[in-house]
């Protein structure tokens, strides 16, 4: 049995029945987590309302307004093509967050499903699935994403798939460990004894117990996905223009003009760091709130 099992080998804390998560209780328990949640909410709303919040068209170039420093007309300055950085950041929030959320969900659902199946379906299937997961996990995340974007061509879809596929084994391992743990507990055995079918056991008893770790891991991945997208962009394989993802804003020509116009580099970098920071805070808070025993 591998370490992943060991980490969760103690019976998992089952979600107490009847307790519905409430934000107030969450905020009291974990004020930092609440701050993180709020920041993410603000950025998400800003992204969704981008056309209203933005002051300029994010793709409009303006030869007369290049390298304008931050000021009243352009709050965060303009880039080398005269595009407004603030408006691009707001529109970029859409792209970066969408990628983050999509990757986290894809990875979470995929990993959750694989983990549940492999934890519950018995040894034979598990013996097939585990090496496959090992293979996937052995690849360095960024390298796998790189090869995949190279293979599939750069586009939003490709980037999302390339980033989320490597997440699957990480999630699957944790979920599988939880499922294995739950399977051994007495109340599941009791349910079995009462004649409940496999699927019913999975849905009624095992699945609810995996929700907490799933939510926590998914939140953590949101941040990682944004960071990986940024790294891919830096290496020239991220989400292509004209979608102004934050990673792209930070990489294409920004590095070259970093000394001439530091705001080109500072603001997108800060935006990425802030959102990932917030998602980490939120994830930590969730972990404290939902399941303090888990750690990964």
């Amino acid at each position, binding site marked *: *049995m*591998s*370490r992943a*099992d*060991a*980490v969760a*080998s103690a019976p998992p804390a089952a979600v107490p029945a009847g307790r519905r998560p409430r934000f107030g209780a969450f905020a009291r328990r974990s004020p*930092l987590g609440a701050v993180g949640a709020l920041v993410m909410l603000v950025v998400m709303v800003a992204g969704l309302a981008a056309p209203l919040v933005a002051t300029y068209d994010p793709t409009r170039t303006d030869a007369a307004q290049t390298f304008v420093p931050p000021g009243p007309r352009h709050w965060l300055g303009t880039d080398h093509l005269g595009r407004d950085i603030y408006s691009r950041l707001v529109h970029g929030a859409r792209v970066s967050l969408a990628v983050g959320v999509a990757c986290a969900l894809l990875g979470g659902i995929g990993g959750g499903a694989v983990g549940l199946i492999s934890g519950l379906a018995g040894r034979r299937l598990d013996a097939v699935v*585990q*090496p*496959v997961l*090992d*293979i996937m*996990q*052995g*690849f*360095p*995340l*960024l*390298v796998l994403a*790189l*090869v*995949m974007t*190279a*293979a*599939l*061509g750069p586009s939003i879809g490709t980037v999302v798939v390339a980033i989320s596929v490597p997440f699957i084994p990480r999630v699957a391992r944790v979920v599988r460990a939880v499922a294995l743990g739950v399977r051994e507990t007495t109340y599941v055995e009791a349910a079995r004894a009462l004649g409940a079918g496999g699927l019913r056991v999975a849905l009624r008893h095992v699945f609810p117990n995996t929700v907490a770790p799933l939510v926590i891991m998914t939140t953590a991945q949101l*941040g990682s996905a944004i*960071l*990986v997208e*940024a*790294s891919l962009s*830096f*290496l*020239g394989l991220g989400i292509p223009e004209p979608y102004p993802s934050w*990673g792209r804003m*930070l*990489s294409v020509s920004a*590095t070259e003009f*970093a*000394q001439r116009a*530091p705001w080109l*580099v500072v603001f997108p*970098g800060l935006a*990425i*760091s*802030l959102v*990932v*920071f917030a998602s*980490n*805070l939120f994830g*930590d808070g969730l972990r404290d709130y939902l399941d303090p*025993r888990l*750690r990964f």
Partner: protein
Amino acid sequence: MRAFVFRRLGLATVTLVGMSIAIFVLLRLAPGSIVDLLFSAAGYVNPVEKQRITHELLLDRPIVVQYIQWAGALLHGDLGKSYRYDVAAARLIGPRVPVTVELAVMGMAVALLVGLPTGIISATRQNTALDYGLRIFSLAGLSMPAFWLGMLIILFLVRVAGWIPPMLYVPVRENLGLHVLQFLFPALAVGYRSAALINRMTRSSMLEVLREDYVRTGRAKGLAGRVVVYRHALRNALLPIVTVVGTEFAFLIGGLVVTETVFNLPGVARFLVDAILWRDYPVVQNLVMLIAIVVVLSNLAVDLLYARLDPRVRYT
């Protein structure tokens, strides 16, 4: 125990074979080939020449035959020839490995030096301002793109000091001080993220151990607080930390790719990315396998270590 080791070894072998197939197929799914790239510098594509080169590089053979040839050569330690540079792949990869290993090790050292103490402090001073400050500091490390941090370091250095680390690799025997400096800054950029992870892991596992009975017993028996923390709590908390250090390696590679680029270090990580873009199959395949072997072995080592250190783990 022996059966456990054999089983794990078997699994590792299966993993490696699977990985070799995966990388082989993925690479060939990528549109464009080295032949197109060779033409790209000349600005045109000549179909007849293209076919000739494709044939020369044996790229027109069935994919299964290509795989068997590659895998067979690899088993004999033959890494083949780089398409891009027309020299033995081993000659290209060989000198780059120590650079990346050194950067990884130094990054890890930075991570441990920063992560462990701050984690312990955070745990022993739980919920104080110091704890909050350290946690925010460590979370920041997890939140910054590594290349951004590297870029800021370079910008800062050149602006303030008018100095940046050497752009050419400085061997140890040439100038030890400069060599260390050359690796120190990128190691900071790489290590910060891992430091943050180790800090979190240390904090949470220390907290858990501190709550356990035997620690309380120790305290009750009148052992001084410091002794309890270092003799008992830390030792037991080390286990999960070892895990993080072990599994962080695969993550670390990603950070190394961009950091090597920013600091112009001639390591394998950056080289691998270029090789992917160049469709230099022999280099990519063999490098990925090399990384895979390291990752699989380090996973295996962690598992074995775990099994040794923690009697609760069942060998099945």
